[in-house]
């Protein structure tokens, strides 16, 4: 395993850069990651990789002007060279009147020790997990997917005196099992450590779906009731995080939630929070500006309560940063990255029983925004789509394209699942969400 850098070594490396002359402020942001990935297809391991890299991003403030340079030469010389490069940029740009200054000193929770079992997981260990997946495939079935384990050290120090440090680990397994006659099933397991990843269970779940989804029949597009499993729910929640909750888009009128503060935007059963400190999520307790992350009630009982802010957008909004800044420079503004849709009281079986005629959706594929202000997105179903009639799953159906407003879907949500799971979206990070029963959901082709 590559060695962890550690807080003290980080401060030693960036020390001279923080003391650069002819500047008013310096911020050093370090992201050190090492990960390994065992990738499989056709029930064979076909890629087995490991990589380590470190980025050191230096932001310089000089006469109100900002420059940023990043290097992966993580030495005292490398840090100073990056700082000088960033200082050179400040000669070419005008002052930034909206710049709120670097983050002041604020307390950051003591980091937990690094989970070395996960950080040092061997290729043999991952291969054994993959073998457990493959072992669950029945005759004529093939497994594909990836199992990645790794660790990240995130550190920040600035000339205001703020120092932040947090290591964390992640283990993520995703599985697609294909079976005879067009059957396909998906399962995933994402956790802060390898103890939370059960290859046999994921393999069994994906294989079960692949068997059940053989011979899918075409069905006409139209508006259906849907039961979304957590992986499908995460697509709605993650895209809402991307186009709805960011402070910049809210302020500038580009968010589907602009002007809707304290307005009922979803069913009363819908509550969405962003909470990096929840032990069930993965990440650091501070943002990329060194601001402690606050738990946000984004939507509470269906009412839009607040957005996510970094220091710049908070200043513009007359509030304080919620700790959701991204690495500078960041023209796109802040984003919530630890979304959780709070669980409800219904099981998936109860949702199916409550469906007269609808579709059970395992997950979506290649979703994208059609109209941000209307919160309309489009994508395809994938790896297990089933017809429900009179409260029972009656058979698999061919994949369909949906084109649907997220907020309308959340308004039409009648049941929320009891169990929230970590799920990774194709384009985004990880959110923790339950299954949903939505009474109207539009499939366009």
């Amino acid at each position: 395993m590559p060695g962890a850098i550690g807080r003290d070594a980080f401060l030693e490396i960036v020390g001279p850069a923080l003391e650069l002359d002819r500047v008013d402020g310096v911020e050093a942001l370090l992201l050190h990651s090492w990960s390994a990935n065992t990738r499989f297809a056709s029930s064979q391991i076909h890629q087995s990789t490991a990589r380590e890299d470190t980025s050191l991003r230096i932001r310089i403030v000089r006469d109100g002007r900002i420059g940023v340079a990043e290097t992966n030469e993580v030495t005292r010389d490398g840090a100073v060279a990056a700082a000088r490069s960033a200082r050179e940029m400040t000669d070419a740009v005008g002052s930034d009147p909206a710049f709120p200054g670097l983050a002041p000193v604020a307390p950051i929770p003591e980091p937990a020790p690094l989970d070395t079992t996960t950080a040092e997981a061997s290729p043999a260990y991952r291969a054994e997990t993959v073998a457990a997946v493959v072992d669950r495939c029945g005759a004529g079935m093939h497994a594909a997917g990836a199992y990645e384990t790794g660790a990240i050290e995130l550190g920040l120090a600035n000339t205001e005196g703020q120092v932040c440090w947090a290591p964390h680990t992640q283990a993520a397994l995703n599985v697609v099992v294909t079976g005879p006659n067009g059957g396909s099933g998906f399962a995933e397991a994402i956790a802060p450590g390898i103890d939370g990843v059960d290859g046999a269970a994921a393999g069994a779940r994906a294989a079960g779906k692949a068997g059940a989804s053989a011979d899918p029949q075409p069905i006409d597009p139209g508006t259906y009731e849907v039961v979304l499993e957590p992986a499908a729910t995460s697509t709605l929640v993650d895209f809402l995080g991307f186009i709805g909750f960011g402070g910049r888009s809210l302020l500038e009128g580009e968010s589907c939630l602009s002007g809707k503060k304290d307005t009922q935007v979803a069913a009363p059963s819908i509550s969405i929070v962003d909470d990096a400190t929840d032990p069930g999520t993965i990440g650091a307790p501070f943002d990329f500006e060194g601001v402690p992350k606050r738990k946000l009630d984004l939507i509470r009982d269906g009412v839009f309560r607040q957005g996510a802010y970094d220091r710049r957008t908070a200043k513009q909004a007359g509030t304080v940063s919620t700790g959701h800044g991204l690495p500078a420079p960041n023209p796109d503004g802040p984003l919530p990255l630890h979304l959780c849709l709070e669980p409800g009281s219904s099981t998936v079986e109860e949702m199916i029983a409550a469906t007269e005629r609808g579709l059970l959706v395992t997950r979506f594929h290649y979703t994208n925004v059609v109209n941000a202000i209307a919160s309309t997105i489009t994508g395809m179903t994938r790896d297990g789509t089933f017809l429900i009639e009179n409260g029972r799953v009656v058979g698999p159906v061919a994949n369909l394209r949906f084109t649907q407003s997220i907020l309308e879907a959340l308004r039409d949500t009648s049941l929320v699942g009891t169990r929230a799971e970590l799920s990774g979206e194709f384009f985004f990070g990880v959110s923790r969400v339950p299954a949903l029963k939505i009474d109207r959901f539009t499939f366009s082709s």
Partner: protein
Amino acid sequence: MCRSRLRDGEEEPVLDVAKRAVDAATAAGADYADARAGRDETESLTVRNQEMEGIDRLTSSGVGIRVLVAGRWGFAATARTDAEEIERAAALAVEQARAASLLPADPVELSPVEPVTDHWHGPCQEDPFDVPLEEKVALLMEASRRMQQVRGTTFASGVLDFYRRRTCFASTDGAAIDQTVTHSGGGIEATAIADGQVQRRSFPNSFRGHLAGAGYEHVRSLGLLSESERTAHEAVDLLTAPSCPDEVTTLVLDSGQMELQVHESVGHAVELDRVLGMEAAYAGTSFVSPGDRGRLRYASPLVSITADASLRGGLGSFAYDDEGVAAHRTPILVDGVFQEFISSRETAPAIGEASNGTMRADGWSNLPLIRMTNISLEPGQGSLADIIGDTKDGIYMATNKSWSIDDKRVNFQFGCEIAWRIRNGVIAEPLRDPTYAGITTEFWNSCDAVAGPEEWTVWGTPNCGKGQPGQVARVGHGTSPARFRNVRAGVR
């Protein structure tokens, strides 16, 4: 002269790093090894409403080592290139490969390649990293100012992006290749917001403009200033334009949208690793199979599509891929009939071929994958005006806004920034929020016009995603405007 910059201005023995990594892998037990020692350099500027929103520079260097041990791949990458670290990474790559043997599999066999020693620089007349920042900032500020002068413009943005990658490749076959590419480009964007609507127009293209394998001369050729006011006017006018109707119609696509149509519904579909199932769990597979070569009528006879890594100016241009295979020009569709996949040394033998050289990695830290090079729709005849003039009733859409396609590359839906009604051969009123949807082979077979070379542009797509862990590739597409019949538009 455009050349790779090295730390502190010193000549770095980058190729030597790759060679040492190959030697270390062999010593650790690899049967075959290759290594890429590389260095990336980028500069990015963003201006909005005449204020600097972002200016940053990034450098990254390191080495990635790929090995075969008993027919199984292993790979390890590290940013440090001292001897001890290279030996550690090489041993880790071998350990990765050995662990893969826990599951039974056919051993990897590589198609042959003639090892070469070469040194190559991509086209670059004016080094973009030598152009003063002040000049770049001034260009974006002036474009922003001109857009802001148009009443109703809410935001007026401009971006410039510059990129240089030096890759030194060595292998146990004896290859020793040092190549550098330079990419430059940018664009402007006007946003108009009113009455709960957001409308946006971009020039020359959306999603950070128009990038090319070239130096700063490409930026000078874009016409960012001369097109500023028109771009802003179109954004403002869209606020009061009627919605694109939901109907089956004749669809004319501009060259910029054709770029993404080719990318999503042809380029990805003909990647042989997808066809063989290697991407099944993530990006997906393909509806195209090896038996379709020479048989599948993918498109109408007017459609010929070519993969060409030697195309001048493309983001997918190079001299050798990341397996040391020389740049190829490969027919994908000829007169509408599917001919060839894009392939690698590992996948090509599965269809009885040798690699046609499309393996590329997202920098030194990633394993090479089959990636599009420059996948281009060969030009047809006549102008866009000819096509419009020949269309009695239809919709002309321009500039991509959204995209989605299924995991087999069959069912797609795209959105564009703007459309115009075509009536009796004339462009009429603009339409807002246009979308269209289709099924890949039905759509391409409905093509009945492709404009000629005078309308042909080599676009750059700098953000093509694939693989686990996710990688970003920079690819190119030469396209002309084209017309399609009986297409569903106005999906919402």
